[in-house]
Protein backbone atom coordinates (compact mmCIF):
# COMPACT_ATOMS: atom_id res chain seq x y z
CA UNK A 1 0.00 0.00 0.00
CA UNK A 2 1.07 3.59 0.36
CA UNK A 3 4.32 4.71 1.86
CA UNK A 4 5.64 8.10 2.76
CA UNK A 5 7.99 7.79 -0.21
CA UNK A 6 5.25 7.43 -2.80
CA UNK A 7 5.14 9.99 -5.54
CA UNK A 8 1.49 10.01 -6.58
CA UNK A 9 1.11 11.24 -10.13
CA UNK A 10 -2.28 12.78 -9.61
CA UNK A 11 -2.93 16.13 -8.03
CA UNK A 12 0.40 17.72 -8.81
CA UNK A 13 0.38 21.44 -8.99
CA UNK A 14 1.22 23.08 -12.27
CA UNK A 15 3.38 26.16 -12.44
CA UNK A 16 3.07 28.57 -9.56
CA UNK A 17 -0.36 27.41 -8.40
CA UNK A 18 0.28 26.63 -4.74
CA UNK A 19 -3.19 26.38 -3.35
CA UNK A 20 -5.27 23.23 -3.11
CA UNK A 21 -8.13 22.82 -5.55
CA UNK A 22 -11.57 23.91 -4.38
CA UNK A 23 -14.10 26.69 -4.66
CA UNK A 24 -13.56 30.06 -2.97
CA UNK A 25 -15.41 30.51 0.29
CA UNK A 26 -18.80 32.18 -0.01
CA UNK A 27 -19.97 35.10 2.12
CA UNK A 28 -22.13 32.73 4.17
CA UNK A 29 -19.13 30.63 5.19
CA UNK A 30 -17.17 33.74 6.14
CA UNK A 31 -20.02 34.85 8.39
CA UNK A 32 -20.26 31.39 9.94
CA UNK A 33 -16.52 31.31 10.59
CA UNK A 34 -16.57 34.75 12.15
CA UNK A 35 -19.50 33.74 14.34
CA UNK A 36 -17.82 30.52 15.47
CA UNK A 37 -14.64 32.23 16.50
CA UNK A 38 -16.69 34.69 18.56
CA UNK A 39 -18.76 32.02 20.27
CA UNK A 40 -16.14 29.32 20.73
CA UNK A 41 -13.22 29.79 23.06
CA UNK A 42 -10.44 28.10 20.99
CA UNK A 43 -8.27 27.99 24.11
CA UNK A 44 -5.63 25.47 22.96
CA UNK A 45 -4.71 27.45 19.84
CA UNK A 46 -4.57 30.70 21.80
CA UNK A 47 -1.62 29.21 23.69
CA UNK A 48 0.62 29.62 20.65
CA UNK A 49 3.28 32.05 21.79
CA UNK A 50 6.27 31.72 19.45
CA UNK A 51 6.85 31.67 15.71
CA UNK A 52 10.13 30.14 14.60
CA UNK A 53 11.27 29.77 11.00
CA UNK A 54 13.72 27.04 10.06
CA UNK A 55 14.34 24.19 7.61
CA UNK A 56 13.72 20.45 7.60
CA UNK A 57 14.92 17.47 5.52
CA UNK A 58 12.99 14.34 4.65
CA UNK A 59 14.21 11.45 6.79
CA UNK A 60 14.42 9.07 3.83
CA UNK A 61 15.83 11.58 1.35
CA UNK A 62 17.84 14.42 2.83
CA UNK A 63 18.07 16.13 -0.56
CA UNK A 64 14.40 17.04 -0.23
CA UNK A 65 14.49 20.13 1.97
CA UNK A 66 11.77 22.55 3.01
CA UNK A 67 11.39 25.87 4.81
CA UNK A 68 9.25 25.45 7.91
CA UNK A 69 7.22 27.78 10.08
CA UNK A 70 6.68 26.52 13.59
CA UNK A 71 3.88 27.96 15.70
CA UNK A 72 4.83 26.88 19.16
CA UNK A 73 2.98 26.43 22.42
CA UNK A 74 4.58 25.34 25.65
CA UNK A 75 3.27 22.73 28.07
CA UNK A 76 6.17 23.23 30.48
CA UNK A 77 9.83 24.29 30.54
CA UNK A 78 10.91 21.01 28.96
CA UNK A 79 8.16 20.38 26.43
CA UNK A 80 6.94 22.31 23.38
CA UNK A 81 4.35 21.35 20.77
CA UNK A 82 4.36 22.97 17.34
CA UNK A 83 1.92 23.27 14.47
CA UNK A 84 4.14 23.42 11.39
CA UNK A 85 3.17 25.37 8.26
CA UNK A 86 4.89 25.92 4.92
CA UNK A 87 4.81 29.72 5.18
CA UNK A 88 3.82 32.50 7.58
CA UNK A 89 0.92 33.65 5.40
CA UNK A 90 -2.78 33.37 6.18
CA UNK A 91 -3.16 30.75 3.45
CA UNK A 92 -0.21 28.61 4.63
CA UNK A 93 -0.62 24.83 4.44
CA UNK A 94 -0.62 22.97 7.72
CA UNK A 95 2.11 20.43 6.90
CA UNK A 96 2.82 18.71 10.20
CA UNK A 97 3.43 18.59 13.92
CA UNK A 98 6.74 18.80 15.80
CA UNK A 99 7.35 18.04 19.44
CA UNK A 100 10.40 19.50 21.17
CA UNK A 101 11.83 18.11 24.42
CA UNK A 102 14.79 19.09 26.59
CA UNK A 103 17.86 16.87 26.72
CA UNK A 104 16.79 15.67 30.18
CA UNK A 105 13.54 14.29 28.81
CA UNK A 106 15.21 12.94 25.68
CA UNK A 107 17.63 10.85 27.71
CA UNK A 108 14.69 9.08 29.39
CA UNK A 109 13.36 7.78 26.04
CA UNK A 110 14.04 4.23 24.81
CA UNK A 111 16.76 3.89 22.16
CA UNK A 112 14.15 2.85 19.58
CA UNK A 113 12.21 6.01 20.28
CA UNK A 114 15.33 8.20 20.18
CA UNK A 115 15.99 7.12 16.57
CA UNK A 116 12.98 9.15 15.46
CA UNK A 117 14.27 12.44 16.91
CA UNK A 118 16.72 15.04 15.66
CA UNK A 119 19.06 17.44 17.46
CA UNK A 120 18.65 21.23 17.34
CA UNK A 121 22.14 22.39 18.30
CA UNK A 122 23.39 22.99 14.77
CA UNK A 123 20.13 24.59 13.64
CA UNK A 124 20.48 27.16 16.40
CA UNK A 125 24.23 27.77 16.22
CA UNK A 126 24.16 28.15 12.44
CA UNK A 127 21.45 30.81 12.53
CA UNK A 128 19.08 28.65 10.48
CA UNK A 129 16.33 28.76 13.11
CA UNK A 130 15.13 32.30 13.67
CA UNK A 131 12.25 34.00 15.47
CA UNK A 132 10.96 36.52 12.92
CA UNK A 133 10.71 40.11 14.23
CA UNK A 134 12.43 39.24 17.52
CA UNK A 135 15.84 40.83 18.19
CA UNK A 136 18.57 38.21 18.67
CA UNK A 137 19.42 39.64 22.08
CA UNK A 138 15.90 39.01 23.31
CA UNK A 139 15.79 35.51 21.87
CA UNK A 140 19.15 34.44 23.26
CA UNK A 141 18.02 32.73 26.49
CA UNK A 142 15.40 30.72 24.61
CA UNK A 143 17.91 29.84 21.88
CA UNK A 144 20.20 28.51 24.59
CA UNK A 145 17.40 26.23 25.76
CA UNK A 146 16.56 25.12 22.22
CA UNK A 147 20.21 24.36 21.39
CA UNK A 148 20.08 21.54 23.92
CA UNK A 149 16.70 20.21 22.81
CA UNK A 150 15.59 17.45 20.46
CA UNK A 151 12.66 17.41 18.06
CA UNK A 152 10.36 14.87 16.43
CA UNK A 153 8.65 16.16 13.32
CA UNK A 154 6.01 14.34 11.26
CA UNK A 155 5.17 15.90 7.91
CA UNK A 156 1.66 15.07 6.65
CA UNK A 157 1.47 17.19 3.50
CA UNK A 158 4.34 16.98 1.02
CA UNK A 159 3.75 20.36 -0.58
CA UNK A 160 7.34 20.44 -1.88
CA UNK A 161 6.69 17.59 -4.33
CA UNK A 162 3.62 19.39 -5.54
CA UNK A 163 0.85 17.55 -3.67
CA UNK A 164 -2.25 19.72 -3.96
CA UNK A 165 -3.95 17.67 -1.25
CA UNK A 166 -2.29 15.71 1.58
CA UNK A 167 -1.35 12.33 0.11
CA UNK A 168 0.08 9.11 1.48
CA UNK A 169 1.61 8.36 4.86
CA UNK A 170 3.33 10.90 7.13
CA UNK A 171 7.06 11.43 6.61
CA UNK A 172 9.63 11.66 9.39
CA UNK A 173 11.72 14.80 9.10
CA UNK A 174 15.31 15.48 10.15
CA UNK A 175 17.10 18.70 11.05
CA UNK A 176 19.82 20.55 9.11
CA UNK A 177 23.37 19.53 9.98
CA UNK A 178 26.83 20.93 9.32
CA UNK A 179 28.06 18.22 6.99
CA UNK A 180 27.25 16.11 3.95
CA UNK A 181 23.66 15.58 2.97
CA UNK A 182 22.53 17.42 6.09
CA UNK A 183 23.59 20.79 4.71
CA UNK A 184 20.66 22.99 3.71
CA UNK A 185 20.85 24.28 0.13
CA UNK A 186 22.12 27.83 -0.07
CA UNK A 187 19.32 28.99 -2.36
CA UNK A 188 16.68 27.84 0.13
CA UNK A 189 18.33 29.87 2.90
CA UNK A 190 18.77 32.86 0.59
CA UNK A 191 15.08 32.86 -0.27
CA UNK A 192 14.14 32.90 3.43
CA UNK A 193 16.72 35.58 4.21
CA UNK A 194 15.43 37.78 1.39
CA UNK A 195 11.85 37.42 2.58
CA UNK A 196 12.65 38.47 6.15
CA UNK A 197 15.48 40.79 5.17
CA UNK A 198 17.91 38.99 7.46
CA UNK A 199 21.30 37.34 7.05
CA UNK A 200 21.65 33.83 8.38
CA UNK A 201 25.44 34.24 8.26
CA UNK A 202 25.35 37.40 10.38
CA UNK A 203 23.00 35.70 12.85
CA UNK A 204 25.39 32.75 13.05
CA UNK A 205 28.14 35.20 14.00
CA UNK A 206 26.01 36.71 16.74
CA UNK A 207 25.34 33.26 18.21
CA UNK A 208 28.95 32.17 18.77
CA UNK A 209 28.49 32.65 22.50
CA UNK A 210 25.55 30.31 22.72
CA UNK A 211 26.78 27.28 24.53
CA UNK A 212 27.06 24.07 22.55
CA UNK A 213 25.79 20.93 24.22
CA UNK A 214 28.65 18.86 25.55
CA UNK A 215 27.05 15.76 24.10
CA UNK A 216 24.49 15.00 21.47
CA UNK A 217 22.95 11.58 21.76
CA UNK A 218 24.08 9.50 18.72
CA UNK A 219 20.66 7.86 18.41
CA UNK A 220 19.30 11.25 17.34
CA UNK A 221 19.95 12.29 13.70
CA UNK A 222 20.11 8.54 13.15
CA UNK A 223 21.43 8.72 9.58
CA UNK A 224 24.63 10.47 10.67
CA UNK A 225 26.04 7.57 12.64
CA UNK A 226 24.22 4.72 10.93
CA UNK A 227 25.47 4.68 7.32
CA UNK A 228 22.81 6.95 5.94
CA UNK A 229 19.93 4.83 7.20
CA UNK A 230 16.61 6.63 7.02
CA UNK A 231 13.03 5.90 7.99
CA UNK A 232 9.77 5.76 6.08
CA UNK A 233 6.22 4.99 7.19
CA UNK A 234 4.11 2.41 5.36
CA UNK A 235 0.37 1.94 5.70
CA UNK A 236 -0.56 -1.72 5.34
CA UNK A 237 -3.73 -3.79 5.49
CA UNK A 238 -4.55 -5.55 8.71
CA UNK A 239 -7.56 -6.95 10.54
CA UNK A 240 -9.29 -4.35 12.63
CA UNK A 241 -10.10 -5.20 16.21
CA UNK A 242 -13.85 -4.56 16.29
CA UNK A 243 -16.65 -3.73 18.71
CA UNK A 244 -19.27 -4.07 15.97
CA UNK A 245 -18.82 -4.24 12.18
CA UNK A 246 -16.91 -1.54 10.29
CA UNK A 247 -17.69 0.44 8.30
Amino acid at each position, binding site marked *: MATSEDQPAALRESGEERQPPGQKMGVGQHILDKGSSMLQSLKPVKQVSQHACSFALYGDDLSRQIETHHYISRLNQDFLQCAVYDS*DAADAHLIGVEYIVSDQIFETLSTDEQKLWHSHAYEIKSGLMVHPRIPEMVAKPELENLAKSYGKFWCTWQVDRGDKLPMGAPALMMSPQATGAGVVKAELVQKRDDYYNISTDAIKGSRVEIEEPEWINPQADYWKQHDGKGFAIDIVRTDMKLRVPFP
Partner: protein
Amino acid sequence: MSTQSKIPGEATHASTAVFETATAAVQRFRPINQIHQHLCAFHFYSHDMTRQLEAHHFCAHLNDEVRQCLIYDSPEKDARLIGIEYIISENLFLTLPDEEKCFWHSHEYEVKSGTLFMPGMPGAIERVDLEKVCKTYGKVFHFWQVDRGDILPLGIPQLMMALTRDEQLDPSLSLKVEKRYGVSFEEERRKRESMSGPEHGVHPMANGGGGGLKTELRETEMAAAAAAASIPRVFV
Protein backbone atom coordinates in the same frame (compact mmCIF):
# COMPACT_ATOMS: atom_id res chain seq x y z
CA MET B 1 -8.90 18.45 34.21
CA SER B 2 -5.21 19.34 34.04
CA THR B 3 -3.01 17.35 31.70
CA GLN B 4 0.05 19.50 32.26
CA SER B 5 1.00 17.86 35.52
CA LYS B 6 1.26 14.50 33.78
CA ILE B 7 3.90 15.63 31.30
CA PRO B 8 7.45 15.33 32.62
CA GLY B 9 9.45 18.53 32.93
CA GLU B 10 9.87 21.58 35.10
CA ALA B 11 7.34 24.37 35.48
CA THR B 12 7.96 27.12 32.94
CA HIS B 13 10.81 29.36 34.11
CA ALA B 14 10.04 33.03 34.67
CA SER B 15 12.60 34.10 32.04
CA THR B 16 10.96 31.81 29.47
CA ALA B 17 7.52 33.19 30.30
CA VAL B 18 8.83 36.73 29.84
CA PHE B 19 10.33 35.83 26.48
CA GLU B 20 7.06 34.29 25.32
CA THR B 21 5.09 37.32 26.43
CA ALA B 22 7.35 39.34 24.16
CA THR B 23 7.10 36.97 21.19
CA ALA B 24 3.33 36.71 21.56
CA ALA B 25 3.07 40.51 21.54
CA VAL B 26 5.46 41.21 18.67
CA GLN B 27 5.18 38.22 16.37
CA ARG B 28 2.31 37.51 14.01
CA PHE B 29 0.63 34.13 13.98
CA ARG B 30 -1.24 34.47 10.70
CA PRO B 31 -1.82 30.77 9.92
CA ILE B 32 -3.01 30.18 13.49
CA ASN B 33 -5.29 33.23 13.38
CA GLN B 34 -7.19 31.55 10.54
CA ILE B 35 -8.46 28.91 12.96
CA HIS B 36 -12.07 29.78 13.56
CA GLN B 37 -13.92 26.67 14.54
CA HIS B 38 -13.95 24.04 17.26
CA LEU B 39 -15.46 20.64 16.43
CA CYS B 40 -15.64 17.78 18.89
CA ALA B 41 -15.94 14.19 17.67
CA PHE B 42 -14.59 10.70 18.31
CA HIS B 43 -11.68 8.91 16.65
CA PHE B 44 -10.56 5.31 16.85
CA TYR B 45 -7.43 3.58 15.57
CA SER B 46 -7.66 2.23 12.02
CA HIS B 47 -6.50 -1.15 13.34
CA ASP B 48 -8.41 -1.15 16.63
CA MET B 49 -11.95 0.14 17.04
CA THR B 50 -11.86 -0.59 20.76
CA ARG B 51 -9.38 2.23 21.33
CA GLN B 52 -11.54 5.35 21.08
CA LEU B 53 -11.05 8.89 22.19
CA GLU B 54 -12.59 12.32 22.21
CA ALA B 55 -10.88 14.57 19.64
CA HIS B 56 -11.08 18.36 19.65
CA HIS B 57 -10.62 19.79 16.16
CA PHE B 58 -9.54 23.40 15.72
CA CYS B 59 -10.09 24.11 12.04
CA ALA B 60 -9.22 26.68 9.40
CA HIS B 61 -10.56 26.83 5.85
CA LEU B 62 -8.02 26.94 3.02
CA ASN B 63 -10.99 27.40 0.70
CA ASP B 64 -14.62 26.32 0.60
CA GLU B 65 -13.66 22.68 0.01
CA VAL B 66 -10.53 22.19 2.13
CA ARG B 67 -10.16 22.55 5.90
CA GLN B 68 -7.06 21.83 7.96
CA CYS B 69 -7.46 21.08 11.68
CA LEU B 70 -5.21 20.74 14.70
CA ILE B 71 -6.43 17.94 16.97
CA TYR B 72 -6.13 18.36 20.74
CA ASP B 73 -7.15 16.01 23.53
CA SER B 74 -9.18 18.66 25.35
CA PRO B 75 -10.51 22.18 24.80
CA GLU B 76 -8.45 23.58 27.69
CA LYS B 77 -5.34 25.75 27.86
CA ASP B 78 -3.05 22.84 28.67
CA ALA B 79 -4.46 20.57 25.96
CA ARG B 80 -2.05 18.27 24.19
CA LEU B 81 -1.66 18.62 20.42
CA ILE B 82 -2.21 15.01 19.37
CA GLY B 83 -2.88 15.09 15.63
CA ILE B 84 -3.93 16.65 12.35
CA GLU B 85 -7.09 16.22 10.30
CA TYR B 86 -7.74 17.39 6.75
CA ILE B 87 -11.35 17.73 5.61
CA ILE B 88 -12.22 17.88 1.90
CA SER B 89 -15.38 18.05 -0.20
CA GLU B 90 -16.80 15.00 -1.97
CA ASN B 91 -15.72 16.57 -5.26
CA LEU B 92 -12.09 16.67 -4.24
CA PHE B 93 -12.25 13.27 -2.59
CA LEU B 94 -13.38 11.73 -5.88
CA THR B 95 -10.24 13.04 -7.60
CA LEU B 96 -7.97 11.05 -5.25
CA PRO B 97 -6.41 7.79 -6.46
CA ASP B 98 -8.20 4.73 -5.00
CA GLU B 99 -5.13 3.80 -3.00
CA GLU B 100 -5.34 7.17 -1.25
CA LYS B 101 -9.13 7.08 -0.76
CA CYS B 102 -8.94 4.29 1.82
CA PHE B 103 -7.07 6.54 4.27
CA TRP B 104 -10.04 8.93 4.37
CA HIS B 105 -13.22 8.51 6.39
CA SER B 106 -16.74 9.68 5.70
CA HIS B 107 -18.46 12.19 7.99
CA GLU B 108 -22.07 11.34 7.20
CA TYR B 109 -22.71 9.09 10.18
CA GLU B 110 -20.80 11.29 12.64
CA VAL B 111 -22.89 14.31 11.70
CA LYS B 112 -26.24 12.55 11.39
CA SER B 113 -25.80 10.68 14.68
CA GLY B 114 -25.22 13.94 16.55
CA THR B 115 -21.82 12.74 17.80
CA LEU B 116 -19.92 15.44 15.90
CA PHE B 117 -20.72 18.83 17.43
CA MET B 118 -19.39 22.34 17.99
CA PRO B 119 -19.06 23.10 21.71
CA GLY B 120 -20.57 26.45 22.60
CA MET B 121 -22.38 26.99 19.31
CA PRO B 122 -26.14 27.47 19.16
CA GLY B 123 -27.62 24.43 17.41
CA ALA B 124 -29.34 26.37 14.65
CA ILE B 125 -26.06 28.01 13.56
CA GLU B 126 -24.06 24.84 14.05
CA ARG B 127 -26.40 22.92 11.76
CA VAL B 128 -25.84 25.31 8.84
CA ASP B 129 -22.19 24.28 8.65
CA LEU B 130 -22.83 20.64 9.56
CA GLU B 131 -25.00 20.30 6.43
CA LYS B 132 -21.75 20.78 4.53
CA VAL B 133 -19.53 18.70 6.82
CA CYS B 134 -21.99 15.80 6.38
CA LYS B 135 -20.93 15.47 2.73
CA THR B 136 -17.16 15.66 3.33
CA TYR B 137 -14.33 13.20 3.94
CA GLY B 138 -11.51 13.48 6.47
CA LYS B 139 -7.99 12.12 6.89
CA VAL B 140 -6.55 12.00 10.42
CA PHE B 141 -3.22 11.06 11.86
CA HIS B 142 -2.53 11.04 15.58
CA PHE B 143 1.04 11.38 16.81
CA TRP B 144 0.42 11.07 20.54
CA GLN B 145 -1.42 8.06 21.96
CA VAL B 146 -2.85 9.71 25.06
CA ASP B 147 -5.58 7.07 25.28
CA ARG B 148 -3.03 4.42 26.29
CA GLY B 149 -1.56 6.79 28.85
CA ASP B 150 1.54 8.01 27.00
CA ILE B 151 2.91 11.00 28.89
CA LEU B 152 5.07 11.88 25.87
CA PRO B 153 4.42 11.49 22.12
CA LEU B 154 5.97 8.08 21.46
CA GLY B 155 6.18 5.85 18.42
CA ILE B 156 4.96 6.41 14.89
CA PRO B 157 1.90 8.22 13.51
CA GLN B 158 -1.38 6.37 13.73
CA LEU B 159 -4.06 6.49 11.06
CA MET B 160 -7.44 7.09 12.66
CA MET B 161 -11.00 6.36 11.57
CA ALA B 162 -14.38 7.73 12.61
CA LEU B 163 -17.78 6.29 13.51
CA THR B 164 -19.83 4.88 10.66
CA ARG B 165 -22.72 3.12 12.43
CA ASP B 166 -24.61 2.70 15.69
CA GLU B 167 -23.02 0.85 18.60
CA GLN B 168 -19.45 1.46 17.49
CA LEU B 169 -19.10 4.21 20.10
CA ASP B 170 -18.28 3.12 23.62
CA PRO B 171 -21.38 4.16 25.64
CA SER B 172 -19.35 5.26 28.67
CA LEU B 173 -17.23 7.61 26.55
CA SER B 174 -20.35 8.89 24.86
CA LEU B 175 -22.03 9.64 28.18
CA LYS B 176 -18.98 11.36 29.59
CA VAL B 177 -18.79 13.73 26.63
CA GLU B 178 -22.53 14.44 26.52
CA LYS B 179 -22.43 15.32 30.19
CA ARG B 180 -19.33 17.47 30.01
CA TYR B 181 -20.57 19.59 27.10
CA GLY B 182 -24.26 19.54 27.97
CA VAL B 183 -25.33 17.96 24.71
CA SER B 184 -27.65 15.09 23.83
CA PHE B 185 -26.60 13.06 20.81
CA GLU B 186 -30.09 11.54 20.50
CA GLU B 187 -31.77 14.92 20.46
CA GLU B 188 -29.29 16.24 17.92
CA ARG B 189 -29.74 13.16 15.78
CA ARG B 190 -33.43 13.98 15.43
CA LYS B 191 -32.70 17.57 14.49
CA ARG B 192 -30.26 16.43 11.81
CA GLU B 193 -32.54 13.83 10.23
CA SER B 194 -32.98 15.78 7.03
CA MET B 195 -29.25 16.17 6.41
CA SER B 196 -27.67 14.10 3.69
CA GLY B 197 -24.23 12.64 3.08
CA PRO B 198 -22.14 12.62 -0.07
CA GLU B 199 -24.19 13.02 -3.25
CA HIS B 200 -22.86 9.76 -4.68
CA GLY B 201 -23.16 7.94 -1.35
CA VAL B 202 -20.23 7.04 0.91
CA HIS B 203 -17.50 5.77 -1.40
CA PRO B 204 -16.69 2.06 -0.91
CA MET B 205 -12.96 2.81 -0.92
CA ALA B 206 -13.31 5.28 1.97
CA ASN B 207 -13.18 4.15 5.61
CA GLY B 208 -10.20 1.89 5.05
CA GLY B 209 -11.84 0.40 1.97
CA GLY B 210 -13.87 -1.72 4.37
CA GLY B 211 -11.03 -3.17 6.42
CA GLY B 212 -8.33 -2.34 8.92
CA LEU B 213 -5.12 -0.43 8.22
CA LYS B 214 -2.02 0.13 10.27
CA THR B 215 1.17 2.14 10.02
CA GLU B 216 4.62 0.56 10.11
CA LEU B 217 8.11 1.98 10.42
CA ARG B 218 10.58 0.86 7.77
CA GLU B 219 14.31 1.49 7.80
CA THR B 220 15.50 2.70 4.42
CA GLU B 221 18.83 3.09 2.70
CA MET B 222 19.34 6.63 1.63
CA ALA B 223 20.95 7.51 -1.67
CA ALA B 224 24.67 6.71 -1.85
CA ALA B 225 25.57 10.38 -1.61
CA ALA B 226 23.86 10.66 1.75
CA ALA B 227 25.47 7.49 3.06
CA ALA B 228 28.93 8.65 2.02
CA ALA B 229 28.39 11.93 3.77
CA SER B 230 27.47 10.43 7.12
CA ILE B 231 30.60 10.84 9.16
CA PRO B 232 31.44 10.36 12.79
CA ARG B 233 29.81 13.12 14.78
CA VAL B 234 32.07 16.10 15.34
CA PHE B 235 30.01 19.00 16.45
CA VAL B 236 29.81 22.04 14.14
